[in-house]
């Protein structure tokens, strides 16, 4: 019997996850807010800062005010605001809240921890 070639699964998985960010893939992000409540404003600011730091020039961000587009809430299954949806690259991820927990946001966005560490050092 032939022994299958050993593959480091964990490594491969991590690499695959981080690949998009590494490879400079453009991110498509959608942020759903309800008007200009402090919480929503905070979410926009947090997201902006985060993206500029980690994905400079590498993302498209659409901010949708569902007060103005209430019909968008149903198809996107928006229940709470603010909600951030990472539409591309896959997998699709949703994050809720004002995005103040940066580590969670970055994990959700699939941005390498190394980058995060660098940011911390800086």
């Amino acid at each position, binding site marked *: 019997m032939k022994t299958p070639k050993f593959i480091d699964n964990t490594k491969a998985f991590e690499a695959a996850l981080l690949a998009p960010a590494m490879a400079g893939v453009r991110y498509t992000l959608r942020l759903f807010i*309800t008007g200009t*409540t402090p919480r929503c404003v905070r979410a926009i600011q947090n997201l902006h800062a985060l993206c500029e730091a980690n994905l400079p020039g590498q993302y498209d961000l659409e901010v949708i005010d569902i007060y103005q587009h*209430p019909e968008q809430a*149903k198809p996107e299954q928006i*229940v709470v605001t603010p909600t951030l949806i990472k539409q591309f690259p896959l997998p699709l991820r949703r*994050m809720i*809240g*004002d995005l103040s927990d940066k580590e*969670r946001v970055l994990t959700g966005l699939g941005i390498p921890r190394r980058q995060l560490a660098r940011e911390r050092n800086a």
Partner: protein
Amino acid sequence: MRSTKTKPVNGKADHGSLPKCLTGIHGLDEITLGGLPRGRPTLVCGGAGCGKTLLGIEFLVRGATLFGEPGVCVSFEETEEELTSNVESLGFNLATLVKQKKLAIDHVQVERNLIEETGDYDLEALFVRIGHAVDAIGAKRVLLDSVEALFAGLEDESVLRSELRRLFRWLKDRNLTTIVTGERGQGTLTRHGLEEYISDCVILLDHQVRETILTRRLRVVKYRGSTHGMNEYPFLIESDGISVLPVTSMDLKYKSSDERVSTGVPALDEMFGGKGYFRGNSILVSGTSGTGKTSLTTHFVDAACGRGEKCVFFSFEEPADQIIRNMRSIGIDLQRWVDKGLLHFHSVRPTTYGLEMHLVKIHKVIQEFAPSLVVVDPVTGLLHAGTAYETRSILLRMIDFLKERQITAILTTLTSGTAIQEQTEVEISSLVDAWLLLRDIESRGERNRGIYILKARGVAHSNQIREFLLTSHGVELREVYLGEAGMLTGSARVTQEAKDESAALIGRQEIERKQLLLQRKRQALDAQIAALQLDLETEVQESEQLIAQEKLKVEKWEQDRGVMVTSRYGNSGTQKENGRPAATAGKGK
């Protein structure tokens, strides 16, 4: 307020100014005296599978179809497709309603494992979603089923609680009549204590299994600002939705008919003061087994059908075919009434389901068929489905229900041989208007049937026991023989009657003989009278003749005397004048 469209509801006595919203659910509007609080949320809670969602959906569907109030269903658990197919079996076509813009379904999905919480949030988006759906179809009703799913989807319970409080407030502000469902918790009405926020109206659904029979129950736990039925009411989930068992009438206010109708047995009508029973009466027919209870009741049915009235026969012991066959043997053809659609049989084993279910079934059949006479044969059969106490309360409700609709009820009850005859096993005698007691009369090696009216309210009824015969042409009543030897029935009565007959015959003959004798005497006397009369006439004739002769004699003598005088006194003036005519007369002769 849409008061013109509402169907009549018992609860007109409610003086509260609280506006209410009819649910359109069978029986629920009666219990709540007019529906749920309008423009406020109502909590419907209960364990798994007790029909919360169904109640909510029916509330929306009835609102959309009966009352022109569109509704929004916010489902946290089932998708639109699932919901649609789930309630399809109840005849609710959600897809059509959605198409007609009478209903909107929004499936709100919150999956904790797909969501990363990264900070503060609120439920504003849910508000927007509901608001959008409500505005799109102009909804007046909302169902949140079940909002507690949010607790599973979102981590921050304190945020959720304050947001839910805000949600209910918001729904109230928008004047939306809302049903919020909640899973029942341990020791609390809902697992997450929703009852804290919804305090206007709380309805608890429940199901109990007792002696392997399941009964669903509904109770209005609280209804702020309104009176309501306090009891647990059984309800059914049936092919056309929920029906809550209509309440026992809270007051005795039904009208009474003055119309008297025939029992179908002329002699029995005679016993009922000659005119039969009052329409809408409840009549109890009790007796030991084999006394002819069913046979007697079919007479009532036959008579009613013969008048063109509809009847329903609830049988707990025999299938319809058997009853029809058996009654044919006493000359009653029930099949023709069944064929004409005037008679409906509802035969079911008492143990098939619980008492309440029986009652609900009875109600349903009666409402659909709208009969004027109902037979329950026998009510004691229901004892198999529950305790005596429960049976009594069910029967009370049934009698109430029938009276309210002016439906005559014939209830048969089986008394066991050892029991006191004038007492029913289920003790409903005080509820009924008339009571016919059938009994066995044993004497001289025979068993005969007797019948008497124990009571008949408002009827001058007979106090006599009649013998009750089942003949090939139906029930016949005979007067029992009351003689020196006591009450005689059966062959003893027949013998006695024969004896009486012969005695009477002898008596009659004697009278005839006496009359004949008298006649003869009279004839004889008449003859005598005639003879005497004849004698008298002869006598009279003879006498008259004699008298005439005597008169002639006298005349003759006087003439002769005149002649003599004339001849003696020829020139005497006065004598002359007097005598001349006599002389001329005499000459002339």
